[in-house]
């Protein structure tokens, strides 16, 4: 146990290891305690694709609606998926031989995070989109699925006039953090969320920096400014 804790501290640092330990403890105690810390990252949508034309053509990307829920891998809960669709969030899914091998969700205006009760809102409105829950089946992770899905997502957003994307990435998801670093994403800040029974605490280095509430349904808005926009100005 101690060795595991030491290794966690070594990998993630004291703060993140403590948050992780707190969350695991909550799981053991029946789920009334939750904790997480997320990096908020952003990047400009590039003008062109990652892959050359014709590459990755054995995979194709489709916009999936709730009527095709059964085609999604069971890594996303059915209730959560239906809730996302009903909130206007869209799902881009990537297929290989008619099998869905990955997906990503696109929130066009804002995203009400289910765990943290934070509304991530890219601003200025209409310029950015919030991406969430990028998933690729393990056996396809070292293939062209990732760049193909990434290219199609960016093409989809460019066609809708979006210029940049934001995401929340768990600090414990090392591969995702590394991926965003390699993609030259800008780290805008972080959010720490703690829940003990009905009490919720949010701490962030982004404004508004702190919120303590007992209201489970109430989302606090965290405006995410386009990295090239000086905060408060709104010009691109």
């Amino acid at each position, binding site marked *: 146990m101690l060795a595991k804790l030491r290794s966690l501290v070594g990998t993630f640092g004291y703060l993140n290891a403590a948050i992780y330990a707190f969350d695991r403890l909550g799981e053991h105690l029946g789920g009334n305690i939750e904790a997480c810390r997320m990096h908020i990252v952003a990047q400009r949508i590039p003008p062109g694709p990652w892959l050359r034309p014709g590459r*990755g053509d054995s995979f194709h990307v489709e916009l999936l609606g709730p009527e095709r829920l059964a085609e999604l891998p069971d890594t996303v809960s059915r209730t959560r998926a239906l809730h996302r669709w009903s909130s206007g969030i869209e799902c881009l899914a990537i297929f290989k031989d008619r099998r869905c091998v990955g997906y990503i969700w696109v929130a066009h205006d804002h995203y009400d995070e289910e765990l943290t009760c934070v509304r991530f809102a890219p601003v200025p409105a209409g310029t950015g989109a919030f991406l969430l829950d990028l998933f690729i089946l393990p056996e*396809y992770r*070292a*293939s*062209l699925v990732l*760049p193909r899905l990434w290219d199609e997502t960016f093409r989809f957003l460019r066609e809708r006039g979006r210029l940049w994307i934001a995401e929340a990435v768990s600090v414990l998801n090392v591969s995702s953090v590394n*991926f965003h670093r390699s993609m030259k994403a800008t780290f805008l800040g972080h959010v720490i969320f703690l829940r003990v029974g009905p009490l919720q605490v949010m701490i962030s280095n982004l404004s508004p920096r702190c919120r303590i509430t007992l209201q489970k349904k109430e989302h606090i808005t965290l405006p995410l400014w386009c990295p090239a926009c000086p905060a408060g100005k709104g010009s691109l």
Partner: protein
Amino acid sequence: MTLPNIEENVCRALSLALDRPIRAGEEVRREQEPRWDSHNHVELLLSLEDMFEVTFSDDEIPRLTSLAAIVGMVAEKRRGLG
């Protein structure tokens, strides 16, 4: 291009991707290299395609997970070009 030439160039690209020196003949496997993540894997193979003027198929890319496998595949494709 000879097999040692191919291996030398693959080692150079792999050294850059993994941020450590890689010698010809060394046993390098993806599962033993923390820096050889999915993103690095794709970037490495796309850069090798440009370097050797070959194309790996969508099904070959996930299988090229060691120095030996990459060198073997490049050599095979280069022979096909000749």
